[in-house]
């Protein structure tokens, strides 16, 4: 890596504001010296802002039937439609503005991705802490399950969980529960990575003096784990979390593309691509291309951020 460590030639002045300390930190240093990361973070931030602010900044509300005009359907990008309205990225067959559907779609994609990653993180970190700290039977059982699960592709597990959940939930609740089922399925498919890493880190931390000291003081084991061990194992968790977010976004898109994800009333980027593929042969390329590009940019930028974080936090590379 070209990211050389920050070697302070002069000692840092004793009295600096917190902001200045942060600015001088290794993390910021490696960020400022990696143009790829800067670009990736700007792209990711722009996409996230676009998704979060969609209801306020989207030019049209694509899910309000009152504003839709079927005559506007299949308008090519950057041209006036039948009803003389302007659509920057064109419209789909129902006359929905592609830019607006992408904005709302990224919202669904990001929400599912972030929630699923958080779920996987909480579950994986919790089980990893217990396995690494307690050892013995708990460790054996948890890691055995994680091993078996890691040998199967996440998408397969998510599909299966999704199918099972569909069978259990009564049909009239399925529409509303679909997003949560998706989050559960993707989260459950990805916890093992976290568990394995945290377990390893916890086993190292457990041997250290500060844990022994806390134990001798009679601190509750749960408190030791949460207050003392957890902060020290969070670095790698952050890295896996970022890369896991990119994976979760792709998994959600894949499931939605396969037609087993979010309901059609709440299309995510994957659903939009699924719809767009129908027009691949008839020449309406914009319905497919723009959602696909958004998905790739989102996944790629988050992935690059994760890569940077991994290198920046890895003491071996310093």
């Amino acid at each position: 890596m070209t990211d050389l460590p920050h070697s302070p030639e002069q000692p840092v002045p004793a009295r600096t504001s917190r902001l200045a300390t942060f600015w001088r930190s290794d993390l910021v240093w490696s960020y400022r010296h990696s143009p790829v990361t800067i670009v990736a973070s700007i792209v990711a931030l722009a996409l996230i802002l676009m998704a979060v602010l969609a209801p306020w900044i989207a030019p049209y509300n694509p899910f309000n039937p009152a504003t839709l005009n079927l005559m506007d359907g299949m308008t090519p990008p950057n041209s006036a439609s039948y009803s003389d309205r302007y659509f920057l990225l064109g419209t789909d067959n129902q006359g929905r503005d592609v830019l607006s559907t992408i904005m709302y779609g990224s919202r669904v994609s990001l929400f599912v991705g972030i929630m699923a990653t958080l779920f996987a993180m909480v579950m994986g970190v919790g089980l990893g802490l217990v396995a690494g700290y307690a050892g013995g039977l708990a460790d054996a059982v948890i890691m055995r399950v994680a091993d078996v699960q890691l040998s199967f592709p996440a998408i397969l597990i998510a599909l299966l969980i999704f199918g099972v959940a569909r069978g259990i939930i009564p049909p009239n609740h399925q529409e509303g529960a679909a997003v949560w089922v998706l989050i559960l399925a993707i989260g459950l498919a990805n916890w093992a990575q976290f568990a394995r890493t945290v377990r390893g880190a916890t086993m190292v931390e457990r041997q250290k003096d500060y844990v022994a000291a806390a134990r001798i003081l009679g601190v509750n084991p749960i408190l030791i784990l949460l207050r003392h061990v957890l902060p020290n194992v969070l670095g790698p968790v952050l890295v896996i979390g970022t890369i896991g977010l990119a994976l979760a976004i792709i998994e959600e898109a894949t499931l939605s593309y396969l037609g087993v994800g979010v309901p059609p009333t709440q299309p995510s980027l994957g659903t939009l691509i699924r719809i767009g593929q129908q027009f691949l042969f008839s020449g309406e390329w914009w319905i497919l291309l723009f959602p696909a590009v958004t998905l790739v940019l989102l996944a790629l930028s988050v992935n690059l951020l994760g890569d940077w974080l991994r290198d920046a936090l890895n003491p071996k590379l310093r």
Partner: protein
Amino acid sequence: MLAFILRRLGQSVLVMLVVAFIAFMVFRYVGDPVVSMVGQDATTGDIEQLRTRLGLNDPFYVQFVRFVGNALQGQFGISYRLQQPVSQLILERLPATIELAFASALIALVFGVVLGIYTALKPRSFSSAVIMTISLVGVSLPTFLIGIGLIYLFAVELKVLPSFGRGQVVQLGWWRTGLLTESGWRSLILPAITLSLFQLTLIMRLVRAEMLEVMRTDYIRFARARGLSQRAINFGHALRNTLVPVITIAGLQLGSVIAFAIITETVFQWPGVGSLFVNSVQVVDVPVMAAYLVFVALVFVVINLIVDILYFIVDPRLRDGARTGR
């Protein structure tokens, strides 16, 4: 050796039993099989009678043992959606998936190893940088987008390859093959490339990393000092030692290939078990889901077992360790 294989075999059986148990739970408790079998106007008495006849009132373990017994004979019941025996459905579609999986594994292995060696031996060349960058994009692009992109390029724009289906097939006994006709081969190209790309980049990066590592070791330096030709060093000494992890990964990936085939088969409407599974999940066709779960687990376990045994054969250190009773 025998003890090692027996121990691994025992573990495999255990894993299969656990998977069978999960499949049984899915099969038994997701949706009510009786409700999906009887008509709208069935009375409670009818339902109870059918329950007893199907053995759904038996104790839990009796039902589980019966499920495993049936599974061993390949019996997974009748598909709710297609009203055909599940085993027959899977057998019909299996050849398509296997041909696809092997074609893509072959592509991934050949190109992965070749490109890996090339980028490792010429790490500073421009073409290596290009290959590595493209591989990075290949890893981060979702499989289905790669498939759609290939369809767009070769089927829509260039119009040289078909975009869906298997082409013309020939029946060989129960095996329906697409490898004997020209249209079958042409139909296989795009799905096989799509499916292979992820594996290809993985194998390539692995070979490259291993090669770079090996090239730094003392025995390579010694081989150079002995005045061996570059070719003999690269292929006789270095490559051989990189192959052990490559075999493992490539073998284990074969299982993932079958699972990733779900996506590829959907994109290209390839009539394999993967698309059967996706369709079953969409309509909660429980017997097919349970059977597919057991089937994939079996594939994984068998491949794991073969890889372990191959490992044993390829790596003499493991054999010696076993002989000295480690």
